């Protein structure tokens, strides 16, 4: 009897304990709609910079929209003005639309003027209802840069003389040439093709501030290993014993930007993952994006034969476009270099961002 009573007691407690949540939850299950888009009051996103080396200035403007790809034929409800804050001169920029592909079109505004060194400007992007995104910025002072491109050394010093607050986007591009192993040739190619693979090496983390300017040294010999690895990653060279061990350097290109002080991302790292987060790297009020000021610098030169050889490049590729077909090492496919791809990319994954290779692992 007691056992029976106990069992009934259990039932009395357990049944409601189970059924009550069921009833409560079932009544909560009627909502069907979901609003994924919460909206925002921010009107525009702005990208560009005032280039004191150019006679025409451009800014790209995005509306903060409620669809990922707005109608490419649609215009934009925006007007752009720049104001020289010292003189008060206000200029309205001209609208231009550019179709990049079948999906994406860009809204650009341009103005034909050259920014004045050390002047302060206001850029405003105004919607018809008055909502405005604005940026205030100061153009950096003038500077001179020196690069001894004619020197025969593989170490080329670069100096920037001037009180420039920021130096960014320093890149050395190596334009090398090589005849790849046959498995990388285009289908049906009768002769060994020559391949160019520009390899960009970042120098952002090698620059040093000195009194009155900046300096750094382009290390062509050190960068050769990076270039070689890039070719190896792309299966364009193989082991020395195989068909295409050599790369020849055709030219070197340097570029950079003397930038204003706001052009400084967190940790001085231009990481697309990081900077794509709205507000992470932005100087725009009531808007997203970044609009800076600066002056582009650059130089392109052909290193001497001695410099190239000293850096590690080889003038005599074993297989060329004129190599006869009866040279087996140029036509028998070597061992697939897939494993080298794995090793190579694993090694460089830490430092790769976009198509720029970073020799150090300071970047994430």
């Amino acid at each position: 009897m007691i056992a029976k009573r106990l069992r009934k007691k259990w039932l009395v407690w357990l049944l409601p304990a189970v059924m009550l949540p069921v009833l409560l939850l079932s009544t909560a299950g009627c909502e069907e709609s979901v609003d994924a888009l919460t909206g925002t009051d921010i009107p525009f996103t702005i990208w560009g910079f005032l280039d004191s080396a150019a006679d025409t200035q451009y800014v790209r403007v995005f509306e903060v929209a409620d669809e990922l790809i707005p109608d490419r034929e649609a215009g934009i409800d925006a007007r752009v003005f720049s104001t020289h804050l010292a003189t008060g001169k206000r200029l309205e920029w001209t609208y231009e639309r550019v179709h990049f592909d079948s999906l994406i079109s860009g809204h650009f505004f341009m103005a034909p003027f050259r920014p004045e060194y050390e002047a302060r400007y206001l850029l405003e992007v105004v919607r018809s209802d008055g909502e405005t995104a604005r940026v205030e910025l100061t153009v950096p002072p003038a500077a001179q840069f020196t690069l001894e491109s004619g020197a025969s050394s593989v170490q080329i010093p670069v100096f920037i003389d001037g009180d420039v607050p920021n130096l960014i986007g320093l890149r050395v591009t190596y334009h090398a040439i090589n005849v790849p192993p046959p498995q990388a040739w285009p289908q049906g190619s009768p002769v060994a093709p020559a391949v160019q693979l520009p390899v960009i090496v970042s120098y952002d983390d090698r620059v040093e501030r000195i009194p009155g300017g900046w300096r750094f040294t382009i290390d062509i010999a050190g960068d050769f290993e990076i270039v070689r690895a890039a070719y190896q990653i792309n299966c364009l060279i193989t082991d020395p014993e195989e068909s295409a061990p050599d790369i020849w350097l055709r030219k070197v290109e340097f570029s950079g930007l003397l930038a204003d002080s706001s052009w400084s991302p967190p940790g001085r790292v231009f990481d697309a993952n990081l900077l794509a987060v709205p507000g992470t790297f932005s100087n725009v009020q009531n808007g997203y994006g970044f609009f800076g000021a600066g002056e582009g610098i650059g130089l392109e030169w052909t290193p001497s034969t001695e410099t190239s050889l000293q850096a590690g490049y080889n003038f005599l590729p074993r297989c060329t476009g004129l190599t006869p077909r009866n040279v087996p090492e140029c036509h028998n496919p070597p061992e697939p270099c897939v494993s080298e791809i794995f090793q190579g990319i694993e090694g460089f994954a830490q430092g790769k961002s976009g198509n720029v290779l970073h020799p150090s692992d300071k970047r994430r």
Partner: protein
Amino acid sequence: MTLRGLHSAHVRLWALAVLAGIVGLAPGLAPDAQAQSASVRGFVTTEPGGESLQGVNVSIDNLTGALKGAASNEDGFFLIGRISPGRYALQASFVGFVTYVDTLDIAADDRLLVNIVLREDALAMEGISVEAEREDGAARVTAGRQTIRPEDIDLIPSPDVSGDLVSYLSTIPSVVLMGDRGGQVFIRGGEPTQNLTLLDGIEIYQPFHVLGFYSAFSSEIVSRADVYAGGFGAEFSGRISSVIDVHSRNGNKRDFHASAALSPFTSAGHLEGPLLPGRISFLGAARYSMLDGLASRYVSAPLPYVFDDAFGKIHARLGPNRQLSVTGLRTFDRGTLTPTDDPLRRSDEVSWRNTALGVRYLSAPRILPILSEVLVSVSRLESSFGPRGEPTRISDLELFNLAVNMTNFAQRSEVKWGFFLRTPLTETALGGLFQNLMIGRGAPTNIGAYIQPEIYAGGGLYVRPGLTVQTMGNTGDYFEPRLRLRLQRGIHEWSAAAGVYRQVTVGLSDRRDATNIFTAWVQTPSSEAMRSMHALLGYRVEPAAWLECSIEGFYKNMDHIFIGEWTAFPGFTTRLQEAHGAAYGFDLRLEVRRPRFYGFVNYGLSSTRYEIDPASPAVNNPGRFRPPHDRRHQVNVLGKAAVYGFDISARWQFGSGLPYTPVSGFDGFVLMDGPVNVRNVRGFPRVIYESIPYQGTLPTYHRLDVTVERAFDLPAGVEMTIQAGVMNAYDRANLFTLDLLTARRTDQLPLVPIAGLKVQF
């Protein structure tokens, strides 16, 4: 915890393995030094069929009231040791079978081998209810373990006459499926790739089909499945969330049987029979999706899925105390989870293929009270994602596994111990999916040993401590202590389990997009293997023979797991970040068993939180957040009744809304990393997410499935079963996924009428 400060990993491990062996052998060897040194052992099988029978109570009685006994294990093996010389009555009983009785004259040092064949009881087969100890049932959960048998699976309404294990899994509280497609099963907060799925000891990496009603385990081939939602013992290792341990049937060793089934979703068939009557049998089963040909003709939603599977098993009794089985499995899946005509979202296909082959040798040597098992298996998973024929992401995983498992039997205890060697080989090309892990291969050798005594301490107390020691690739050596407890007093049972678990081969998925189920298998990018700690506490009561209730609370924490970084970067790619997390909750179950009615109600409450490690260089560390599989409330109600020869089955399921990340708007992104001429740069469309991911909650999910089934006996021993029913009976628009790029929703299956036919002999 790790073994630091010692000299050689392998020396340490093998020393521990040997120690484990010695300790393991001890309970079995000790009796030989004593007077009571005789033993009786054997296998219990059924007649007809020759199937191994688990849970058979085998006892010997010397007619003076001194009773000794043992229950047969999953292979039907039993061993009764420490028997004094004399005459004994041996008895083996199991519900539904005629009790086996024999008389044994046992001399000192005898090691008798008695293989018992139990014949089906005709009376029981005619429906006379015989109550006996059950192991399975919706509420029968002991320290996270639930046993599922084909009869349980067939209770759940499904689009086929034959059920599927995944249908039953979806009724278990705190088991979350993302919907009726995708093949992703989350158990108590763990990721699908953290579940260890075994078929006859062979690891199957992605066994669930792309359409959520199906897996590689149809009820046609399943003998039993043990699901450990957590707190699993030392015999399982290498995964940190759960274990789904599926044992397949052996083919019939006396007669040939076959079946063929057709439904709008699949066609299936099976054939089994003796190769050498009484000794060797085979079982083959295959299934093929019919969505293109049948279901898509009348289901309004697109069904761009193809899947199939094939299973084969040969089982041989090599001698009275030796068995050998060879099991093979192949599955294939291909589908587009969110078909679209949007040019921005290509209808990328995900596909995967499992291939597995294993050999299992079981032996009960006469000289020792030991059951030994040697398992050698190879399993392979090939996955790809991208346009058909031109996949952009590929992940291959191949595993060789050698395991030796021993069970030593003693009077009131058993000791399981063994060692294993696993060599998972991963090759992955991710096409930029995880930007800091683009491409690679790995082969982290995994060597280890375990020991697990099982002690019946008296007074209804059962204790099973355990320890796994293993070295995992170059991440280190690990101690993984485990403990399982059970205390049974009358109608009450308390149970608890705890353990530390490690995993070195990890599956990576981009959880920002629930429809992107492509999983890349790699060796952990961390210097330390993923770790999880489990704690479970449960209570079960059977207040009446027809009623059973249970409640079980759980807590899991997870370290060194990897999740996709939350970034607004416009590519459909992400970077991995090391994270930790925790899941906790409880399950409440109530089960009713009446002669003509069966039903259960399950409720699960759970909470899962992830957090990117503060030291991790995350772009945007959102703090603690709900991952997209954090389903807070879950209810399953099942009822099955026999009415005028028809089996009517209905199941209602409810799940509270899953988290999602609301979007503020869209714009474009240009990387201003130098003197960028913006007029020449295309830029990327960008999604402006809210700063903390998964702050929104999707609508709740609920659905009613109903089936009616009737079996007909036809001449020549043929049985035909006809099924009709409806899935999603009240046509609830349940959301499957929300495309945050287009704010477009994709719903799960609408109301789907079904009809199925199965013929078997």
